[in-house]
């Protein structure tokens, strides 16, 4: 597994505390979007299509920290936009590390090399570099040539300077399992701590509406890609989530697992759907009609979604909800057999 023991312990004790407190719904990872600006315009991304005055705006560090406190999740993922374009990213990260939050700073790594000096290596900080495949596939996914060749040296530099580095990859229809297996080899040889993979979501605002994976294709792709996983591959995510992607588990979505906060407020109901905003986290949790989301609800927008932000929290909750789930997780973690 690609997750350090200290982080596993923090997450495990947090989830158990929620269970002991009888909380049915609890957040696991806060998705904190301090800005929507990005230096790329990827085909599958539906996050950055806003008028100029919105793209120019930044959440203040104070508002970010207040959201982190309000939410209480042990992990904070900072997507965006491109977080390294956020002018106070160093102060925000330092404050989160001070609060012992596990931070995943999601970046396309274009600015990583020049911004590394702003950060100090820490167990609590991981650069999660967006890599959608080997050179050809990645550059095509991000709609710009040369990005892969910018990201690779930045990853090497960050690893060499003692930072935790992971990769995050979004897969679309047409991805080649064999090429992805080569990609996993390549990323591990760069020295990354672990990899995160997920199928893409069919954002209604994404420019490319044709290549999102349907559920059956997702199972097929991930089952082929992850069959007989190599020992050197490490994934920085729940092994049960990977088994779910391979069709070995039938999980239901946990839309409140990764709540999203940005300049509009708390996004209802999840990181992917934008059906409105609330002023407070409590209001989000208490007033969202959760029964309208997830596969069982019959909601068309949820039908083919198998994205990590909805299902990884389910997998983690499953691990701690029964002995069966716990034993399965430990077994997969120790043997590496998915």
């Amino acid at each position, binding site marked *: 597994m690609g997750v350090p023991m200290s982080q596993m312990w923090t997450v495990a004790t947090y989830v158990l505390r929620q269970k002991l407190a009888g909380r049915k719904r609890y957040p696991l990872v806060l998705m904190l979007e301090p800005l929507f600006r990005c230096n790329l315009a990827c085909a599958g991304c539906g996050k950055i299509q806003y008028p100029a005055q919105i793209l120019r705006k930044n959440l203040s560090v104070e508002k970010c920290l207040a959201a982190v406190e309000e939410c209480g999740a042990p992990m904070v993922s900072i997507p965006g936009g491109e977080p390294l374009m956020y002018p106070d990213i160093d102060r925000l990260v330092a404050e989160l590390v001070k609060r012992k939050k596990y931070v995943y700073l999601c970046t396309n790594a274009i600015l990583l090399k020049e911004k590394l000096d702003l950060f100090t290596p820490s167990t609590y900080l991981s650069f999660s570099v967006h890599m959608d495949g080997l050179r050809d596939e990645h550059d095509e996914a991000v709609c710009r040539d040369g990005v892969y060749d910018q990201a690779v040296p930045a990853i090497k530099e960050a690893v060499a300077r003692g930072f935790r580095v992971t990769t995050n990859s979004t897969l679309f229809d047409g991805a080649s399992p064999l090429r992805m297996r080569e990609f996993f080899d390549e990323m591990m040889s760069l020295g990354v701590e672990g990899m995160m993979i997920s199928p893409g979501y069919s954002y209604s605002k994404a420019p490319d509406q044709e290549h999102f994976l349907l559920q059956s294709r997702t199972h097929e792709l991930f089952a082929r890609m992850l069959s007989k996983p190599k020992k050197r591959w490490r994934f920085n995510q729940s092994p049960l989530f990977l088994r779910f992607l391979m069709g070995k588990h039938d999980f239901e979505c946990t839309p409140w697992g990764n709540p999203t906060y940005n300049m509009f407020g708390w996004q209802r109901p999840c990181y992917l759907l934008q059906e*409105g905003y609330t002023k407070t986290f409590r209001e989000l949790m208490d007033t969202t009609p959760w029964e309208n989301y997830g596969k069982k609800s019959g909601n068309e927008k949820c039908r083919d979604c198998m994205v990590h932000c909805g299902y990884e929290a389910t997998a983690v909750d499953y691990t701690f909800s029964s002995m069966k789930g716990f034993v399965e997780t430990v077994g997969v973690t120790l043997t590496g057999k998915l």
Partner: protein
Amino acid sequence: MTLEGWVPEVGQYLTLAEVVEFAFDYRGNTTLVKADGTEVVGYIFNRNTYGPEPFLEYFDESGEGPFTLRYSEVANIKFSGKDTAAGNSWRAWLERKEREKAEKGAATGSVRDPDPHRG
């Protein structure tokens, strides 16, 4: 399909609440025509119809806000700003890549450069 440039006719067949829903889903600035006849340009990012008095929220053209307007204060919404989700930049990228592939194919004598990586 984009609503860019649309000026709805609020009336019997199209309610203001429906127009607000379209505007909430629109990724561009709109012109809010107020009941008093004044206009303000901004990006509508939220609406709430649950309470006794439905309202919408927006940031104005300079990014100031958020401001709140009750539905009763709004007469109409014009889809006046550019639709940033219309996908034009991505289409341009695709066209350029197709052109490059065709040029490469012509140079090497093949009809079209096949992509061996895609399943």
